């Protein structure tokens, strides 16, 4: 076993980041915090695509394109989420997810 990064090192790293993201999604009270945890999840997913692209199909770049799509989706998601949070904050004066439990504003 060598210390220089191989496929499994990379995979474990991205999995750790993903698990941290899961923890954040489940425990964060602030909606913006939840959004940030989701960004962590997306980021580690994009990283996985690139890792597999690099180690499993080097001559092709489909993984890189998937990573690009993930980044674009993350951007769209962040835009919408921000708009929703601002709207929610306007009507409820809070973005605490444990207190936003009705659908009616």
């Amino acid at each position, binding site marked *: 076993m060598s210390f220089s990064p191989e496929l499994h090192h990379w995979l474990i790293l991205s999995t750790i980041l993903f698990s941290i993201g899961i923890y954040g999604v489940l425990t964060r009270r602030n909606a913006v915090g939840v959004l940030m945890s989701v960004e962590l999840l997306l980021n580690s997913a994009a990283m996985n695509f690139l890792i597999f692209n690099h180690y499993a199909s080097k001559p092709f770049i489909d993984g890189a394109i998937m990573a690009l799509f993930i980044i674009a989706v993350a951007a769209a998601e962040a835009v919408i989420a921000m708009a929703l949070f601002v709207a929610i904050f*306007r*009507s*409820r*004066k809070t973005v605490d997810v444990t207190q936003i439990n009705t659908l009616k504003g």
Partner: protein
Amino acid sequence: MAVKVSTLDERIKLTDSADSPLDTQEYFINMGPQHPATHGVLRLMLKLDGETVREVIPVLGYIHRGIEKIGEHSTYRQFVHLTDRCDYLSAMMNNWAVSLMVEKALKVELNDRIEYIRTIMAELERIQSHMLWWGVLGMDLGAFTPFLYGFRDRELITDIFEETIGCRLTMNYIQPGGVMDDIHPNFVDRVKKVIEYAKPKIDEYEELLSGNVIIQERLRNVGVLSADKATSLGVTGPVLRASGVPLDLRRVAPYGVYDKVNFEVAVGSVGDCWDRYWVRIEEIRQSMSMIEQLIDNIPAGKTMLMKPAKKTVLPEGSHYAQLETARGILGIYAVSDGVSDKPVRIHMRSPNYNNVWSADEMTRDSRIGDLVANVSSIDIVVPDIDR
């Protein structure tokens, strides 16, 4: 009629409760007392909704020195010295207002030489005040260069003052019964030279600032003050004239030798910042032409008709005189008991005090940047507000 006076806390509460529920969060912010755009120690409480100003509450008193109260303990001649420190950019005009009040009360007839010198001095001072204002307006809008241009040219006028009077800012030149001293032999030549020099400079000012597209954007239709609002707020001076009310005491109730010179009263139409800008630029031009008409015709005569050492006692009753300073109408009101050489009560109706309240009217529902332009276009001198 009882006047309801509310404290600052009450006013804040009042505007706070008007907050629409659960929409956007409005908040208060202090502009000043230390703030570059308030020209001294004026404090403006702003109620903001994001960048939008919902209300402006001027909070006064940070440079209050009790000048009116000190006036009650000093003779009229001593009081003249204090007025320099109010609106320091119209120092001689403040002196003149007190002198006018005393002369009116004592029915002193002045000779033409005194009136000519006073008028020329007042107009010179109006020019330098407007030049300074022009520079400061540029600086408030983010252009630093006009500030130095304005100061450079104003400096030449203060040099003239220094030669004759010995002072550059708080001149204390016009006294009850005349002027402090005769004009310097160089005075006439130098004034002519400066006017010759400054005329093209005003065109340069216009080139630098007036035609600029950003200045037009920043000033046009910003801070509109309607004629009705302006009169009901008691606004005077260029701000009032910009709103379309041609009230200029130099024309309406002439003092000095304003009835002998030709000049136009610059009047705006919309009442926005641009009109206030234009009115002042035009006033500089008019003042120059006035000085040109007067400077060659200064008659000979004495320059002081009342003996300074003599005790000045005004007749019993109240006396009032007013004139047009660079910022508006300055009125001096004094009550004398007919025995003492000191007034029982003295009050100044200062132009800046009334003008500053129009900031709220102008700025409501526009941006912070507009507030700065508005405050600058009102051209306040804070010591004159607080006195």
